[in-house]
């Protein structure tokens, strides 16, 4: 038995999706926590301090490399799995079976693609200008709070961010609990716990993210 055999079978590939998925969930907690500093209403002082810690310190910057690696693995594996699963039924049904499962659990590939499209725009708005200003090393950062203010003054940006975060919410509604099932949680109590926790996470975190551009657009933060 080789590591390759373990992680390239149908169950092994699920395990990769689950491990990277949980890793990305942990990242979301940090991201939402740090960004929530905008609501300190201190002209972005606290938020920029947090952003500075993440951007001008080798430890989070090295973790960022790991984050991108996990993200790429999740995306590529997700695309490959979706394509491979689709190819297993060359003649489809005339009447499809929808009642047995939730629509978002069947649409993880589509939701993931929507999140990816949103992510490209999101990185273009904040990560890319900041890192290129830093020379992709530990140079001086841009004022990210002011950048948020600027970007979120446009209605279409706010709408696209809201839609992107809603896709994330539905993706998490299935992905959170599914990841734990994939890791082998079959105890009834724990399954119930992770399912409720997953729904709570899938609602609260994307909602907080949506409230950020909305807060800027509506002028709730200054």
């Amino acid at each position, binding site marked *: *038995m080789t590591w390759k*055999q*373990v*992680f390239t*079978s*149908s*169950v*092994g*590939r*699920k*395990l990769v999706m689950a491990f990277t998925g949980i890793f990305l969930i942990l990242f979301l907690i940090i991201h939402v926590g740090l960004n929530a500093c905008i609501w300190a209403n201190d002209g972005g002082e606290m938020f920029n301090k947090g952003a500075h810690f993440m951007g001008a310190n080798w430890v989070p910057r090295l973790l960022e490399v790991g984050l991108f690696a996990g993200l790429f693995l999740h995306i590529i594996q997700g695309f490959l*799995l979706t394509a*491979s*699963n*689709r*190819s*297993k*039924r*060359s*003649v*489809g*049904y*005339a*009447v*499809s*079976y*929808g*009642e*047995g*499962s*939730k629509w978002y*659990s*069947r649409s*993880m590939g589509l939701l993931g693609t929507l999140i990816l499209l949103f992510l490209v725009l999101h990185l273009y708005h904040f990560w890319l200008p900041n890192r290129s200003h830093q020379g992709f090393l530990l140079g001086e950062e841009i004022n990210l709070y002011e950048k948020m203010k600027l970007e979120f003054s446009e209605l279409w940006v706010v709408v696209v961010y809201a839609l992107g975060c809603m896709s994330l919410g539905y993706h998490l509604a*299935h992905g959170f*609990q*599914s990841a734990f*099932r*994939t*890791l*082998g*949680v*079959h105890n*009834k109590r724990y*399954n119930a716990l992770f399912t409720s926790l997953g729904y709570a996470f899938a609602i609260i975190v994307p909602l907080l993210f949506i409230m950020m551009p909305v807060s800027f657009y509506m002028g709730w933060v200054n």
Partner: protein
Amino acid sequence: MEHYHMNLNLKVWRQKNCKTKGEFKLYRVENISSEMSFLEMFDVLNEQLIRDGDDPITFDHDCREGICGACSMYINGKPHGPWQANTTCQLHMRAFKDGDTVVVEPWRADAFPVIKDLMVDRSAFDRIIQAGGYISVNTGNAVDGNSLPIPKDDADASFAAAMCIGCGACVAACKNSSAMLFLSAKVSHLALLPQGNPERKSRVMNMVAQMDKEGFGACTNTGACEATCPKEISLSNIARLNQEYLMAGLTEK
């Protein structure tokens, strides 16, 4: 329950063999009793087709009492038809009303090629079992049932998994054509018992490898399989299979 008669329009998938393309054909059956089973209704239709000199519709069936796993029709968008925890042979015509149109398709998955009409080749399941769904023991006299103490909960969970009749409805219902519910039932019922313990690691690795080789898709935990399973095999068996696989994958030599 009130007994009544009905006339139905049937839209049935006809396909000569796995090499030719199939198509839907429309049939009308009349004066069908609400107390007939779905397969008896098909028997009536086939008698009618034979009388008219047409080719009767091929479909799988054997025990006709819901325990063998041979019947396999996908009726109105659900494997085994509209009732819960039920096989096609135990679906009765009182599930339908006079004038209904019923669409009948075979299990659709490339790993289950159509043999003819509504009959598909499910020998892939047999090969998955051959890859490890057994325990290796010398045969002989039956041992005393109490010589191996097994906790009641484990025995019950094992029995619930062993209820799987291998009909393939889970594959038919799954958007990925995954056989994971079937496989997890077979792995679980042995993994929960001491007799299954010596071979548990090689069993799960070999059976998963065989399942992949047969061309089934990967599981994405949507739960469609559990919702349609005639024997109500629980989705938690898949999580147990994942755990078995992870432990074996990390510790097997």
